[in-house]
């Protein structure tokens, strides 16, 4: 186990090697987080997957060409050029399939991925007999831990260029991703914008492939933007978060890998990003799962409370006029709506906790508290206002109104209720229900 001192020195980037690796992966995380966000919004997240496989034949062919030209074949810019060309060809092939057949994006991507990758495997097997071919695999599996300073310089150059271009074209990419047809109708060159976006992704992918490997770059393009989406509904904030999550995953994952000898950096970075994703999916403040469940529970509670109080009020109306607060037999409440016994008990407990029902007292008799009675009359009044509104303002048969009103009144806020009151010139007393109140059977 590493000592606290080692942990501190790694996380604070005191060792030169760690600094290089962490800086490189964090830069890459930033750039791919931002380009990946647009891919996600264009519903092409797996593009990175297709592209990174599509670079494969280019690497092999570039190697073979350089060898036959008398070079070593392992010249980095040459290999990267090969990878880029074949990646771009893969992208063009995909766009061509998409635009000239009725096959969809996923098939087009899958085609580019598998055929290019297969071709790459064939090319690679051919050139393997040439001297110096060993080690070409590192393009596929990456070697984050052995990154050197020149790699970082390259990643940073590409990363900054790509990020700057993406931000410069923020509004163009936004309208492309949101509404392609509208963009085209106003004269944006949709196909060229698409190609440009994919060229940016290619640049990130090719750089990333050789620095950190295939799986990590695919993950980097998908996971940070998806995680970011759970925290915000604003595109700008999503881009910032996505870049940030990518960078943090790179930093944390690479740091942990520096501490434990036996853990590959790329895999750790993916797992870090995946953990951030999981956390975001659960607890994200804009679309998180927990938030949604809480919202749902809250809504259910509110609707339950309103149903209970309105039922109580309607029963009180049948018991005496003018309405006054009296104990209500539990049995009558049970009959008033289609509640099951345990359901009603749950609602009553909830109402007791909210002080809408007098505490203690006989369980067979429900006695609303002062505030409960006030709330009940308010809810009943809103409900009837709404019913009245629907009846007078829309062509909905009155017999259908009640069901709608039940749903809608819970969605309308106080503001709408005030507007309705003004519109309907409310009477001094609570308006009568436009329905006959069903007498309990």
């Amino acid at each position: 186990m590493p000592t606290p001192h080692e942990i501190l020195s790694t996380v604070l980037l005191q060792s030169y090697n760690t600094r290089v690796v962490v800086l490189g992966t964090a830069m890459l995380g930033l750039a791919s987080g931002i380009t990946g966000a647009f891919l996600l919004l264009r519903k092409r997240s797996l593009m990175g997957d297709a592209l990174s496989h599509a670079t494969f034949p280019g690497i092999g062919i570039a190697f073979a060409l350089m060898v036959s030209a008398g070079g070593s074949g392992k010249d980095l810019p040459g290999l990267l050029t090969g990878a880029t060309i074949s990646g771009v060809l893969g992208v063009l092939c995909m766009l061509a399939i998409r635009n000239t057949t009725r096959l969809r994006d996923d098939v087009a991507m899958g085609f580019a991925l598998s055929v290019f990758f297969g071709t790459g495997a064939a090319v690679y097997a051919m050139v393997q007999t040439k001297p110096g071919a060993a080690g070409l695999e590192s393009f596929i599996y990456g070697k984050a831990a052995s990154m050197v300073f020149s790699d970082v310089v390259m990643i940073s150059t590409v990363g900054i260029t790509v990020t700057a271009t993406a931000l410069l074209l923020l509004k163009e990419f936004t309208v492309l991703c949101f509404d392609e047809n509208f963009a085209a109708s106003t004269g944006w060159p949709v196909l060229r914008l698409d190609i440009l976006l994919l060229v940016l992704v290619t640049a990130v992918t090719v750089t990333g492939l050789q620095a950190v490997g295939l799986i990590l770059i695919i993950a980097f393009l998908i996971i940070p933007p998806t995680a970011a989406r759970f925290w915000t509904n604003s595109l700008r904030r999503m881009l910032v978060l996505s870049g940030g999550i990518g960078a943090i995953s790179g930093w944390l994952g690479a740091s942990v890998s520096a501490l434990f000898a036996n853990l590959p950096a790329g895999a750790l970075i993916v797992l870090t990003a995946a953990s951030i994703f999981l956390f975001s999916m659960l607890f994200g403040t804009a679309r998180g799962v927990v938030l949604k469940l809480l919202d749902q529970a809250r809504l259910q509670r509110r609707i339950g409370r309103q149903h209970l109080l309105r039922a109580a009020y309607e029963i009180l109306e049948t018991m005496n006029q003018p309405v006054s607060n009296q104990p209500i037999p539990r049995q009558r409440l049970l009959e008033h709506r289609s509640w099951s016994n345990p359901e009603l008990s749950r609602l009553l407990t909830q109402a007791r906790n909210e002080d809408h029902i007098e505490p203690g007292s006989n369980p067979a008799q429900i006695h609303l508290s002062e505030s409960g009675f006030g709330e009940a009359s308010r809810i009943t009044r809103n409900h009837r206002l709404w019913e009245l509104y629907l009846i007078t303002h829309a062509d909905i048969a009155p017999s259908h109104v009640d069901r709608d009103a039940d749903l809608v009144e819970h969605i309308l806020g106080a503001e709408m209720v005030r507007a309705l009151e003004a519109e309907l010139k409310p009477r001094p007393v609570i308006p009568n229900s436009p329905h006959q109140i069903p007498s309990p059977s």
Partner: protein
Amino acid sequence: MVHEHPPDCPLSVHDLTVAYQRKPVIWDVDLNIPEGKLVGIVGPNGAGKSTLLKACLDLIPKTSGWVHIYGQPYRANRHLVGYVPQRESVDWDFPVNALDVVAMGTYRRLGWFRPVGKAQKAIALEALEKVGIAHLAGRQISQLSGGQQQRVFLARALAQDAKVYFMDEPFAAVDAATEQAIVVLLQELRDSGRTCLVVHHDLATVAQYFDWLIFLNLRVVASGPTREVFTDENLRKTYGGKLSLLDHAAEAIRRS
């Protein structure tokens, strides 16, 4: 038949045919729409209404024919055109708010690279005000109701400040209040000299909303002022034997 195409016409279509694979979707469409009209495009399902719109906007390739906007090819006069696509054509989960979407109407005038500024936001807000939902400007678009989403799309078209508007079923699945608001808005646009082409489904309201009608069923059955072309005969030619629809229409004719 010789067709005259006056140069100041907001939309003139000559001999337009669009074929998807081997099947022509619309053919031989010839239209001249005068300025300042509310134009309804009606026809049965699959009659090619959306296709006509998209072909006019260069969104799908034309097999033959041409489309002129104010006497110039679409490309030259694109800035005079506003477009309201069908509501289902986009992903409403997209992370933008209502104001952002409306501001998209100003992007093209803004040009490459320049970010959205105060001026564009002001235009967008004004457009949202015109459709009556300025108070929802900051709301994420998935949290808007169907009618509100449709209003956002209309506001975006208003922000384009165009002279000819193409609207693909703006009344589809909106509430009665929104429908009324849209009609009022369309009338205001017309009164300020704009031309609106609207794909519409409801024959019962067609005569009441529009002052010019295009009956479309693969080809143009009739095109002209509502008073002249909204006839039993044209309806029958357009809708064929779909009698239940015709009954609706007959009633509408009686009422008008």
